[in-house]
């Protein structure tokens, strides 16, 4: 195993082309899926947090439950839609990057929604009242509330990103682990481990950890800067 570790280091240091192509693809898919899901989940989380409606508690509970949905279930669900035999089959998205992105977006959606809701509902009631007393319009209020919750929203988005960059079920099932096309760090990891190519697998694992660490470091830096 020691030699595998050394080889992994060598692969990273030497800038192995396939290794970095895979890492780049992974990041690209996850960034896009997180962006797409955020554009839907942030407004939804906001609506759930700021509006009163019947079934609100139920909705929150459902989203909390969906946060823990296994990736394979999401993969299967999206597969059944995107397969040629499924309702969206004519789009021909299965085994393309778009399928991974859709699947990851679905996977991250409840996470981002739930965390955005949580972040907004933890804001002090005084914030809304302060805005009301100074005569803010509804839109001004909404924008200020989002701005005050920016760290919570950002960490919700980064949590979503963390979940999708590290998941394997969706990418494998919907992307098919196609070399140079839909292979991601995690599907490659699964494949290389199975093949016994531990060096490449380790190198991928190291890159994944570095990315996860960078994301967390960035988040805590922002939180510190905000609340120092």
């Amino acid at each position, binding site marked *: 195993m020691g030699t595998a570790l050394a080889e992994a280091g060598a692969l990273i240091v030497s800038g192995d082309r396939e290794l970095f192509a895979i890492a780049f693809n992974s990041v690209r898919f996850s960034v896009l899926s997180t962006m797409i899901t955020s554009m839907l989940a942030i407004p939804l989380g906001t609506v759930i947090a700021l509006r009163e409606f019947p079934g609100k508690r139920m909705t929150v509970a459902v989203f909390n439950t969906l946060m823990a949905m296994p990736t394979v279930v999401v993969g299967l669900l999206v597969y059944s839609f995107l397969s040629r035999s499924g309702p969206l089959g004519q789009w021909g998205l299965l085994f393309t990057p778009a399928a991974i992105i859709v699947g990851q977006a679905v996977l991250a959606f409840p996470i981002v929604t739930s965390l955005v809701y949580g972040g907004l509902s933890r804001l*002090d009631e*005084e*914030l809304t*009242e*302060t805005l*009301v*007393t*100074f*005569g*803010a319009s509804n839109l*001004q209020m909404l924008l*200020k509330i989002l*701005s*005050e919750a920016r760290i919570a929203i950002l960490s919700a988005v980064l949590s979503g990103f963390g979940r999708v960059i590290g998941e394997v079920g969706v990418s494998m099932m919907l992307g098919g682990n196609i070399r140079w096309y839909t292979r991601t760090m995690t599907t490659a990891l699964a494949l290389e481990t199975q093949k016994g190519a531990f060096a490449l697998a380790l190198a991928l694992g190291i890159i994944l950890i570095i990315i996860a660490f960078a994301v967390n470091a960035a988040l805590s830096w922002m939180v510190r800067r*905000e*609340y*120092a």
Partner: protein
Amino acid sequence: MPEYPRSTDGAPLVEVEKLTFAYDSARVLDVDRLEVHRGDITVLTGHNGSGKTTLLKVINGLLQPSGGVVRLWGESIATGRGRRMLRSRSVLVHQKPYLFHESVASNIRYVAKLREPNARDIEARIEEALAVVRLEDVAHRRASGLSGGEKQRIAIARALAVRPDLLLLDEPTSNIDPESIRAIERALREVNRAGTTILMTTHNLATAYRLATRVYPMTAGHIEHDRNNVFRGHIENTDEYFTYFRIGGGSGSAGAGPTSAATAAAASAAAGPEKVQATGPVIRVPAQDRDTVAAVIPMDDIILSREPFESSAQNHFSGRVTAIEPYQQGRRIDVDCDGVIMSALITPYAIEQLGLGAGSEVHLAFKASAVRLY
């Protein structure tokens, strides 16, 4: 800014009528009537849960009352016109104010632009508002890094930057450092003198009596009448046993409501120049060494007699009865002593026994220890 109808003299700026508020069917507010007049500093005192914060929030339209009406400048805030007036001319500062997660200057700039998007003097206003609360040097600091007292002062500065005609404050001096309390009291006095009417709550009696033109205690959602005489003045000297407090320079309200003689006297006294008049009577108080602007004497602690009398009480005065009014369960007797109205609460039976009526000559006494200096 559009011209709003100015209140005519004597017409209240804030008028609350038969106001009730219930949380989950539990009635937490039941106010028959409250008036705040232009130029007043009206203070609601009382313990936690007495309903003062709720009342303030209802007056600011943050809570919908279960019943009754709130009028500002004679217009109900339930109407569109009243609501617009409420949002453009008054502002509320919370007990635990929310400062936005940005710099102090940005906090102030944001609300100033909300109210007046086209104002050109915003930067000057920021400086001015910070100067009023004595925090000129924190403009570029992050609001979240300030101490509790500093936050409260910044919240007040932020409210002042929109130049409200009516400033509502919820417990502005609770749980903060003495320096901030002094700064806040000074700032509120300053803006009040410049024309801002203030309605605030506090459970800090010192703050209440140092600032207030009227004090209303609240209990269990009701507004009570204050049972204290409040006199503005200053300490003349202190010897081994006593501090000598000279009443003058305008007396505070006795909290007796707008129709009382005491208030009328207070109003005429307040109209004079701010320098202390050396002509008022002197009260003896147990020796103490504090910065003091008000003496508070409970109306219940004043004893009346038709004849001059001697007693262990250190303060004896005489004067003529100017009014006898029903006051809660008893009667309030206002006595003019050398131009200062002192009020005592006694029973109808005692009035009959003493044969008191308007114009009666009367002697009154109270212990030095009954007096609180603030």
